[in-house]
């Protein structure tokens, strides 16, 4: 049985814990043994993206030490996975942990990527009888090249009708501190995304990044749009026989 370390990003831990819980359920269902290294905090991305590399570095080094012995690390966020896999290279270029970080980078996987590419599973026995559209999260798409994985998983969900989102590859406007520093640009980008979601008449918009969804959910509710957001893990966690609360 593969042993999987759970990398639960700080904002998922605090604001979207259900995404983490649902990921655990799915991983267990396909036969993984999961464990949560309780020493983990944050990967360092907020400071790194804001230019505060000196503040981000010790946090990243700490992350590397916490996970260095894990065989496989799975994370329900494309962006946080990107931080460890792609950006630690730059951030920890002069760190004594540079080599350890580089080795760890190859063992950290985004959730859908882990299921399809590593575990080789596409059908996780989920049922979700709803009309769903997929937003492509930027870091997952352009940094990790994850595109077919969520589609493969969604195509095997019973009852789910997947409708194509126009301009699905266009950023939703989240972008971390950008969403706060340049709120009006971020919100305008979110509005454009929401209009595209409306055009699909989907009940739910899903993605592999809870940060996009946190922003988008706020935009959709603020603008009184009909669709709601749901993380891919939460769709996959809905088991065939009994339908769990979808909107959690």
């Amino acid at each position, binding site marked *: 049985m593969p042993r999987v370390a759970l990398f639960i990003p700080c904002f998922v831990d605090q604001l979207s814990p*259900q995404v983490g819980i649902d990921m655990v359920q799915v991983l267990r269902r396909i036969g993984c043994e999961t464990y949560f290294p309780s020493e983990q905090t944050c990967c360092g991305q907020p400071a790194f993206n*804001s*230019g505060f590399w000196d503040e981000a570095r010790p946090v990243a080094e700490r992350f590397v030490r916490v996970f260095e012995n894990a065989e496989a690390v799975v994370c329900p966020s494309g962006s946080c996975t990107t931080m460890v896999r792609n950006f630690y290279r730059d951030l920890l270029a002069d760190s004594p942990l540079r080599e350890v970080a580089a080795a760890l980078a190859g063992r950290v996987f985004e959730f859908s990527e882990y299921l399809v590419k590593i575990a080789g599973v596409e059908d996780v026995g989920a049922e979700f009888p709803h009309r769903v559209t997929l937003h492509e999260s930027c870091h997952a798409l352009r940094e990790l090249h994850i595109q077919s994985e969520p589609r493969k998983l969604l195509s095997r969900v019973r009852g789910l009708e997947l409708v194509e989102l126009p301009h699905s590859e266009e950023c939703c406007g989240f972008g971390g501190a950008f969403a706060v520093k340049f709120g009006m640009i971020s919100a305008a980008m979110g509005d454009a995304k929401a209009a595209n979601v409306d055009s699909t008449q989907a009940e739910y918009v899903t993605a592999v990044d809870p940060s996009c969804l946190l922003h988008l959910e706020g935009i959709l509710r603020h603008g009184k749009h009909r669709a709601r957001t749901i993380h891919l893990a939460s769709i996959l966690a809905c088991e065939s026989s009994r339908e769990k609360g979808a909107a959690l």
Partner: protein
Amino acid sequence: MRGTAAQEFLRQSVEKTADLEHRRIIRWNIDNYDTAVNRGKSRFADWQAARDRCQQVKREALARLDDYLLQFEKQVVARGGKVFWASNSEEARNYVTELAVARGVKRIVKSKSMVTEEIHLSPALEKAGIEVWETDLGEYIVQLRNEPPYHIVTPAMHLTRLQIAELFRAKLPDVTADDHQSLVAAARRALRKAFFSSEMGISGANFIVADAGMIAISTNEGNGRLCTSVPRIHVAVTGIEKVVPRLQDLAVLWPVLATAGTGQPITTYSTLIGGPRQPGEADGPEEFHVVLVDNGRSQLLADPEQREVLHCIRCGACLNACPVFRHVGGHSYGTTYQGPIGSVLTPHLRGQDFNHLSFASSLCGACAEVCPVRISLHHHLLENRRNAVRTAGQPWKEGMGFKLWSWAMRSASRYRVLTGLARRAARILYSMGYEGSWIDPAAAWTAYRAAPAIPRQSFRQWWESQDGKR
């Protein structure tokens, strides 16, 4: 963020993102661009391989930039041309202005050149009493409106035909109708007079070809050829990074530039110029000058991390791909080069007053994905942010905040206590209806979005509550 450039950017962004008609026009134009470019890319047997090749050529050129430029200069001089090396905008401006004054130039026609915008050439010439005519149709339109170009390739992208018709009726003598052809004809009649009464033509150069000793110009309207061949004097102003080693490199660069820029297989006119009129030739200018502008470029060349920014061939693809550009529009940037390339480049050209542009990005990476010479634009934005914090500093509140954050995140127990408190405070605040009010610390978030439902339990609390029970 500091200084007035940053404040102005914020002010304009607020205005432009709220302007739905502006957003509609830009979206319409860029959708058309996308369709044309996708068709254009499909004409290539392997677009990705073409990008690789362009990247290689530019890398090779930058590795021996000095040699290639000297090789170019030698041949231009041998044909009777002049090459002036300008280390900054002022030197470049002065050279052209003094030349024009010395030759008694009264009127100048210009073909499209972003470097002349960068060095603010036209205002200097006008100050010297010289009339300057932009002859690229888009440039001509924004000149008539007293506006800078909106976009490095499509200067009048923000205007509709009807707005242009209104402008022409106000500024030109004989506008007969509002249809495209009549409008173009009206501009053409005005510009023809300028072409044949100017003593000097100014152009840019899309490439400087080292082995041939020539500049290469890509244009679509024919104005470039008129500017460079009809007036007595031709001055080409260009950046030193435009050099490529060999004439044969254009075999890939020309079509790639045209495809990434507009979706065309190649621009309508592809011109090579190596000097003034030679003995026995029927036409061409009597004088040919090339102004090679550095203006911060050699500093960028010395920076191994960001050197590749000099690969840029100014196709505009990153602007069109950028969701921020699509919403704030070209003028909000307040820079010669807009969009991602402008945000990366401008702090190098104009200093730290333009650091804020590197923060005005969601780092989505769409720019790097479309860049035909594979510049990692969004990664350079991250580096610029780091450099900005190191050299210029950030507001003290943010600096303190991240120091505190870093301290908190280095201990799981500190993390747990502090996040627990924050979550509890947010639950209380939002349950009392203070969401989005002035005491809401997340007001910058909730001003535009409904606040998230704050969960009672964190993931780790859930984990501990069920651990071992699975």
